[in-house]
């Protein structure tokens, strides 16, 4: 493996090398007594354990020789040995530091600070082609890129679909929302009619596109079981004209439905038929029945 020297410009210039080699001054000028500081600096930065461990060893030896030597007699052999050991330790630490410095500059030149790294967005992962679904699950899972743009770009919006079991009806059907066309009291004594719904705003609302098409499921008009006519009942799924006529006849006979359950019982709806339309049914309680001929007061038997 060969290392090619970096270019002589930019951070790898002479002054850049000189500045990053300043840590060599610590082992050189301190006779090895402060070598640990420089070695630990480069060793910890470059995550080289051998560098800072050797620096600590050089510092310990140099400090022992430096501080113990003067305590001994000057003409003794141990004093001379300590001075020689101090000089050897100092020279070895300097040579070692110079060798380390080459690797240190190489490592330093290869480093790119995190604040200078270009911020490139991560590529969008390409989904793996999914296995073929069983036939009965084909319509349940949305196609790839249905909600978000796939690798081939944004997909067109899904076509408008009505809920299963519900015939597609445009929102704001004039036959239902027009005042006066669906509010005649079907039985005498019914309460005041509910104000008609506000016509749809010409400005497309959230989730609504131009042309009356919505991105979400359409909000089906609700029917008051005590006010709707037979024709409106017949628009509900599972209710034909004959059943609608029987519902209206039962409502008149009973003076109105007291709950949606009464309506269900009168219509003879099966549970699964009721589930399909229960979100579209409301029930306004009928007014209390007053018998005109009954005298007001309390009858007391004496």
């Amino acid at each position, binding site marked *: 493996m060969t290392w090619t020297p970096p270019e002589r410009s930019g951070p790898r210039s002479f002054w850049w090398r000189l500045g990053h080699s300043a840590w060599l001054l610590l082992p050189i000028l301190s006779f090895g007594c402060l070598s640990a500081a420089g070695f630990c600096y480069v060793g910890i930065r470059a995550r080289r354990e051998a560098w800072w461990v050797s620096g600590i060893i050089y510092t310990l030896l140099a400090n022992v020789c430096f501080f113990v030597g003067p305590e001994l007699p000057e003409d003794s052999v141990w004093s001379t040995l300590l001075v020689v050991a101090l000089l050897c330790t100092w020279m070895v630490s300097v040579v070692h530091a110079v060798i380390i410095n080459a690797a240190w500059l190489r490592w330093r030149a290869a480093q790119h600070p995190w604040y200078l790294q270009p911020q490139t967005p991560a590529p969008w992962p390409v989904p793996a082609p999914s296995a073929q679904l069983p036939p*009965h*699950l084909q319509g*349940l899972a949305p196609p790839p890129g249905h909600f978000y743009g796939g690798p081939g770009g944004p997909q067109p919006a899904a076509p408008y679909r009505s809920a*299963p*079991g519900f015939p597609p009806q445009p929102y704001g059907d004039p036959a239902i929302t027009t005042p006066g066309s669906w509010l005649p009291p079907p039985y005498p004594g019914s309460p005041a009619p509910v104000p008609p719904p506000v016509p749809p705003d010409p400005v497309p609302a959230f989730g609504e596109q131009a042309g009356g098409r919505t991105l979400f499921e359409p909000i089906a008009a609700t029917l008051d079981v005590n006010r709707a006519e037979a024709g409106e009942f017949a628009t509900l799924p599972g209710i034909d004209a004959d059943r609608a006529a029987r519902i209206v006849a039962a409502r008149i006979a009973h003076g109105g439905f007291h709950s949606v359950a009464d309506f269900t019982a009168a219509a003879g709806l*099966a*549970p*699964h*038929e*009721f*589930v399909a339309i*229960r979100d579209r049914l409301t029930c306004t309680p009928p007014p209390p029945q007053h018998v005109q001929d009954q005298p007001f007061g309390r009858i007391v038997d004496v």
Partner: protein
Amino acid sequence: MTEKPRIVVTVNPDGTVSAETLDILGDDCLDYIAVLEDLIGGKVRDSAFTADHTRQRTFGTQQQVNRDVDPA
């Protein structure tokens, strides 16, 4: 006390599937119709309420009567 709600699904030899909810009282059983349709992948052709639809929840309440006291 009511027991744990259950749904018994039976696949008939002719391919039709019948399901019955057990110990699901009131209209709570209606919520499982859509679940079963999604699981089976078909539409319900016929349905009827079971006796659990009108069965009331029973609670284990006990009433202690002190018979030593004369009500008069």
